[in-house]
């Protein structure tokens, strides 16, 4: 009588599930192979005694069956045979042990169970040297990924994403120039957020120039190589269904005070616009919320007289209850089928996400077709086509009236009951307006903003490639590949009338974006044993890359018929984004609506292996870029790396030390620039009546640009002990980027605000460590893996121009004057602004009881952390799989406008201090002699003190950005075959998952310090953030 056995096979070192492992009943042909998350199930005859687990590159394991129905196994890498195979540059599969640089990967199952809508976030805490910053808790928000520190002072520091050998676009089309420093706008997500986790087999992180030299200009920031699932490995038809449901709530919101309401000292509502006592004041320095009777915005009006009603707090969860519970449903169905000659996988995924802010959502439908066929033994064809449709309704961000957080966190009357505003909006309004609010100037009803000032977007994107390869001989292969990534995005921005941004009439803006990246590539690959001991593995290739972009914005600032959002309904001349310098507030100015550029490349690489334990690899590439001047548009760069497996070279066997390898390498990578930076332009703007208007553009372009260069060295060791139960990888690196092409901000007195030139040298050096431990032996029924990573990067700006005139470079500035800068000799991303004027002993100087600002600005910190790290524990027992990840960022600072304004306006709990008795500020003042300082003894009202302390001086709202987070928890169970076989299914897995569950420690009050507004270089500024979310839910995985 047969019985069912199931279980999960994992990598001994990483604990990640291993797909494609052959599981056979020893001595028979009865067997199965593991699926994508490493699980298997099979029926065994009663006579079976032993299960045999085999996989290429791993040491085979036999396990007695006994009476068990669940058998989990951890496999060790086989250092003697082929070794672990990883995907490297250009999608090549290479043995990890032969590589002279560090790479790390994540398997698909880890991405789909505890899933993130933006797959980039799944890497948080799991890869050494990779820092992920998710911008906010809004659906589809962008994520910044930084590998080994920022190399470019000003340019793109994001890695290249490559899917099955195809580079894809990862731009972040945030709406508005003001998004980066947090002054408003919409975040439409970064391009890579379109990648569907369900279709990913594995993600490999190539961490820098050394690993990515072959990718050329864009590999300098590292490469995320994604391999998608295909049908080849399945035998027969396979169907899998994966479904995740999760719920989201705000992770952290500020602590508010609930004792004082709106106004200045006293309050009475008449018209909310200054007609009453403080009734146009959007601050909470008003009367104590003690139940006294005051006419309020929502008090009944009887015979034209507004009745006094109790002045009370709406409760401490007033703001928290404003947020709805977010909900994310993801359903994936994949069909795959194949045999030795061909395979195909078709997958459909639907993502339906509802945000924590009312009326915000993201909907994404993805169809992926991945197939390949061997037309003859020598001639092979494969293709991967991915279609994504994304629809979003996203909230406005940053310090802007259209971001409701600005109102709820700072400029707010603390007596206002938000559920009452909801009723007013939904019922068509008290006082005859759906926008009727607690104040009639400065702020709109938050429900009116979220429901009637919407930012809708829709993106249709096709990413596809076609690869043909032909084996000329058994060692020489020719490949031709064409790849296309093309998308159209349509954004609609509605700003309803009566809002402060748009007082008179409805305002409507349409934006159309078109992006194309096309690569055409020919490759010849060689893999041959030159002698018995010497192997060569190499390639020569040519590539042409074409990029095109189109971005058009048209705005109708005043609609004729209210509520009809269409350009044809414009009541005034349409304003186009091409009209540089128009004074409308749609942020519609786009300098170059249409762009195109091309790079032609020739490259080659070779890796020589000696006796399979000593390896040396070289690469070389030459690019010709259309964006550089004729004389400088060709640039060549090489790399070399070497690796030596000591354990094999020295014949160490049967020792405590099971594996040891040293590696090192040098690489250079060149880089070009954006199009149209060689020739000056003279933009026009709306004619003054009949007079045309033109101006010198504020940027001085440069006809003599030359390519940027990054030189990078890295060295590392990899050791494993006790049959791989302990594994340690250490990597040190240093990279220096020179001749950076910068648009350097200059004093306007030069005649230009920016100057484009080759300048700037940035040095990054760092250390990465990965430590994997399996505390229990392989034979133990309980599997336990601990995976730890640590990375510290030290980033220094060495110089800008050769003459040394330029000392600092402003990357961006917050709306209230905090600069984010690169300064010579300092870490990248310095926060530069006012501190308090201080006495020689460091105490704050007061005048008339109020702190004084120092006119000389200072460095208040840097957003660059000291180190980042993460630890993941995985436990497996009889089909139950439990894991959790904690990660941390230590060091670095941020400036918080939530705290700056929240204290200014009296909405935060911290403003309760001294409300009745006043505040004697902690500091000194000039003594009677006019020379020495004595303790400040002047009592001032709390409102004045808070205003001066938080508004006049930015250092008062700068905080340590360190945090520790419980990033991910997952509890999974693979149902035993004995249960499953009674159904029509082959396998059932269920798991409970949580992400971002707990901000274990943080020093910035009231906010998530992991903050940014987009994926650019201006970071460390927090501006009435939409809170990040805690997510928890469950996942069901069925195979048919």
């Amino acid at each position, binding site marked *: 009588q047969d019985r069912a056995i199931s279980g999960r096979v994992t990598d001994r070192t990483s604990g990640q599930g291993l797909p494609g492992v052959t599981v056979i009943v020893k001595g028979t042909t009865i067997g199965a192979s593991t699926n994508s998350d490493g699980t298997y199930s099979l029926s065994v005859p009663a006579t079976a005694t032993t299960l045999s687990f085999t996989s290429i590159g791993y040491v085979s394991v036999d396990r007695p069956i006994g009476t068990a129905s669940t058998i989990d196994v951890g496999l060790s890498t086989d250092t003697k045979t082929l070794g672990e195979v990883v995907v490297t540059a250009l999608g090549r599969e290479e043995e990890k042990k032969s590589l002279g640089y560090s790479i790390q990967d994540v398997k698909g199952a880890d991405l789909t169970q505890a899933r993130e809508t933006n797959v980039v976030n799944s890497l948080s805490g799991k890869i050494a040297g990779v820092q992920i910053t998710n911008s906010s808790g809004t659906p589809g928000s962008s994520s910044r990924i930084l590998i080994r520190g920022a190399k470019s002072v000003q340019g793109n520091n994001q890695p290249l994403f490559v899917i099955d050998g195809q580079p894809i676009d990862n731009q972040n089309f945030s709406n508005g120039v003001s998004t980066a420093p947090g002054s408003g706008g919409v975040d439409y997500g970064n391009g890579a957020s379109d990648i569907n986790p369900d279709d990913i087999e594995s993600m490999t992180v190539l961490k820098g120039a050394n690993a990515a030299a072959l990718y050329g200009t864009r590999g300098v920031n590292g490469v995320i190589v994604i391999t998608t699932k295909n049908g080849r490995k399945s035998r027969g038809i396979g169907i899998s269904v994966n479904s995740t449901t999760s719920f989201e709530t705000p992770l952290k919101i500020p602590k508010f005070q609930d004792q004082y309401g709106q106004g200045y000292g006293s309050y009475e509502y008449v018209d909310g616009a200054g007609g009453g006592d403080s009734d146009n004041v959007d601050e909470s320095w008003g009367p104590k919320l003690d139940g006294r009777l005051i006419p309020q915005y929502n008090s009944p009006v009887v015979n034209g007289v507004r009745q006094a009603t109790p002045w009370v707090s709406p409760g401490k969860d007033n703001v928290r209850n404003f947020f709805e519970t977010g909900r994310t449903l993801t359903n994936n169905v994949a069909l795959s089928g194949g045999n030795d000659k061909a395979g195909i996988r078709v997958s459909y995924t639907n993502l339906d996400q509802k945000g924590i802010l009312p009326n915000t959502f993201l909907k994404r439908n993805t169809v992926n077709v991945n197939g390949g066929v061997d037309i003859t033994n020598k001639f092979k064809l494969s293709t991967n086509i991915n279609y994504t449709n994304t629809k979003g309704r996203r909230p406005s961000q940053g310090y802007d009236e259209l971001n409701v957080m600005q109102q709820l966190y700072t400029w707010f009357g603390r007596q206002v009951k938000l559920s009452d505003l909801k009723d007013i909006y939904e019922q068509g309004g008290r006082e005859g307006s759906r926008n009727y609010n607690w104040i009639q100037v400065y702020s709109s009803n938050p429900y009116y903003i979220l429901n009637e000032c919407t930012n809708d977007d829709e993106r249709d994107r096709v990413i596809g490639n076609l690869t043909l390869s032909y084996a000329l001989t058994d060692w020489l292969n020719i490949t031709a590949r064409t790849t296309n990534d093309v998308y159209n995005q349509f954004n609609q921005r509605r700003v309803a009338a009566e809002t402060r941004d748009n007082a008179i009439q409805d305002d409507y803006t349409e934006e159309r974006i078109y992006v194309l990246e096309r690569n055409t590539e020919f490759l010849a690959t060689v893999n041959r044993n030159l002698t018995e001991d010497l192997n060569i593995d190499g390639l020569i290739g040519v590539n042409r890359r074409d990029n095109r972009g189109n971005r058009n914005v048209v705005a109708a600032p005043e609609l004729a018929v209210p509520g009809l959002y269409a350009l044809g309904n414009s009541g005034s001349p349409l304003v186009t984004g091409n009209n540089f310098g128009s004074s409308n507030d749609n942020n519609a100015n786009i300098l170059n609506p249409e762009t195109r550029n091309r790079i032609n490349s020739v490259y080659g690489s070779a890796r020589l292996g000696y006796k399979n334990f000593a390896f040396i690899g070289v690469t070389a590439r030459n690019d010709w870029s259309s964006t550089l001047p004729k004389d400088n548009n060709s640039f060549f760069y090489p790399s070399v790396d070497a690796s030596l497996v000591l354990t094999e070279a020295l014949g160490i066997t049967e020792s405590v030390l099971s594996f040891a390898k040293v590696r090192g390498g040098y690489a250079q990578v060149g880089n070009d620039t954006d199009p149209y930076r060689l020739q000056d332009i003279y933009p026009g703007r709306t004619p003054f009546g009949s007079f045309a208007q033109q101006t*010198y553009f504020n940027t001085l372009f440069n006809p003599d640009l030359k390519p940027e260069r990054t030189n990078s060295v890295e060295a590392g060791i990899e050791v494993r002990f006790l049959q791989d139960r302990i594994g340690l990888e250490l990597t040190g690196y240093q990279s220096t980027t020179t001749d950076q092409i910068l648009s350097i901000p200059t004093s*306007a007195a030069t005649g230009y605000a920016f100057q484009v030139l080759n300048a700037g040298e940035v040095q990054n050096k760092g250390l990465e460590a990965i430590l994997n431990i399996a505390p229990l032996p392989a034979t133990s029924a309980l599997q336990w893996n601990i995976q730890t990573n640590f990375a510290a990067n030290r980033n220094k700006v060495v110089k800008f121009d050769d003459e040394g005139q330029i000392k600092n470079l402003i990357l961006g500035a917050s709306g209230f004057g905090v600069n984010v800068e690169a300064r010579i000799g300092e870490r990248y991303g310095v926060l530069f602004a006012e501190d308090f004027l201080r006495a020689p002993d460091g105490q704050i100087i007061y*005048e008339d009881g109020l702190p004084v600002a120092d006119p000389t600005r200072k460095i208040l910190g840097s957003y660059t952390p000291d180190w980042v790290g993460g630890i993941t524990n995985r436990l497996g027992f009889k089909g139950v799989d439990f894991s959790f990840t904690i990660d941390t960022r230590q060091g670095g600072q941020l400036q918080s406008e939530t705290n700056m304004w929240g204290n200014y306006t009296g909405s935060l709990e911290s403003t309760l201090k001294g409300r009745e008795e006043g505040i004697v500020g902690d500091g000194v003042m000039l003594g009677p002699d006019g020379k020495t300082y004595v303790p400040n003894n002047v009592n001032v009202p709390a409102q004045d003190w808070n205003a001066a302390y938080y508004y006049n001086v930015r250092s008062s709202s700068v905080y340590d950005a360190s945090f520790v987070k419980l990033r991910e928890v997952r509890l999974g169970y693979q149902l035993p075959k004995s249960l499953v076989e009674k159904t029509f299914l082959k396998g059932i897995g269920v798991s409970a998952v949580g992400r971002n569950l707990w901000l274990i420690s943080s020093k910035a009050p009231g906010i998530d310090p992991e903050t940014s507004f987009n994926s650019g270089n201006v970071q460390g500024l927090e501006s009435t953030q939409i809170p990040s979310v805690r997510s928890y839910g469950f996942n069901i995985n069925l195979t048919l």
Partner: protein
Amino acid sequence: CEKGFEEFNTNPNQPLTVSPDALLTGAETATAFRLFDVPANMDGGLLIAQHWAKSQYTTEDRYSFRSTSYQSIWDGFYTGTAALPGGLKDFNELLRIGKESNNPNMQAVALVMRSYYFSVLTDIFGDIPYSDALKLSTTVNVITPKYDKQEDVYKGLLADLKQATTLLKQKSTMAVGGDVMFGGNMTKWEKFSNSLRLRLAMRAIDANEGLAKPEIADVLNGSNLLMTSNADNAQVVFLSAQPNTNPVFENRLTRDDHRVSQSITSVLSRRKDPRLPIYANPAECAAKPDDKSVPDSTGLYRGIKNGLTNPVAQRGPLCSMSKVGDYFTKADAPGVLMTWSEVLFFTAEARARGIVTGDAEAAYNSAIRASMAQYGITDVAAVDAYIAQPLVKYNKTSLETQKASIGTQKWIALYGQGVEAWSELRRLDYPFLSLPASPVGAAGGKLPVRFRYPSNEQSLNQANYTAAVARQGADLIRTRLWWDVKN
């Protein structure tokens, strides 16, 4: 490999050539907008000169100015900003184009406009980059321009204006297109050039008499054209259609934080000045509707005190305080750079100081009449009666009393021209204005006498900034400028 690369990289989006006409229009309108926009004017000169006051968000009215305002004034006048391009850079390039095309008229227009806005900048900040400014190009590597002493800036500007007049006296027939100020009328440009030279020379009178006196005497020697009617006024008349509307109008679309200052309503009321109904709108409601002992202010001209705290300003109520007169808030209100009445006030002062001969009082009276006429008040008898009032009548007792007469009437005449009103208030020290109610900014118990340098200068031009501060004095709003000699 590189076939077609140049075509690939030729910008299809923006003009690659510039028309001097379009350059002049763009620069004239952008700089005029900026001169009357919030940072320099509405929340700057007009508050300090106590023409306007703030009824809400009173921080600037209490002398706590935003660093972003200093930045936008500096960036805006030098190069223009991304939102509003056009600045000194464009006038400077127009001068170069004028030289290359041997067009003396174009050169003169460029020199006059460049001088005007350099003087605005130096009057706001003091020492500024001038001789090194606007030089950066692909061949000239001046990334960190040094600051010139204000005295040297003034010497340079006076020389440039003299040069402009010399060029205009050639009476070239070469056209200047795109001129929205004078429609290419070179006679009017010549008048403006000389009038501006008079303004700048007089500004230097207390600091360097040796420099100023010969200049003033030269301008007023009868051989130079000066403004002789309000038709000669230098101004940009904004349009009624966005985005070319007046900045005050633009501001009123989204804000309502300004009211007329009590300082000017009381001065005008006491003199029964016919300009009051033009400068201010009547209050729309009662100050204390519930308190019958307080007279109903509805319909009265009721300014508010400068520098109130937010809570006090709130108690208005807002509708009980006079808004700024419709004349100044309409979409197509003019942005006035210089007027005929100013020329007459300067003439009066030059006569009072004995630099030139003539009847100072006659010039003073004409200046008042010119200002009245500027606002359409042409009833001769009424204006004569106004001038005859003891409070208005020219006081010849001493130079000081003459400065008081001139200073007070000029302050009235310059209503709305915030930067110039503030400059002349600093120089003449008349009228006496009381301190704002609750100043918090570091003005040292006085009215602010300059603006702080924009904070980005500490990042982008640090060494020169530090040198300028070391020479001029601490970078504070209470540090006096060179021409602002303590009396």
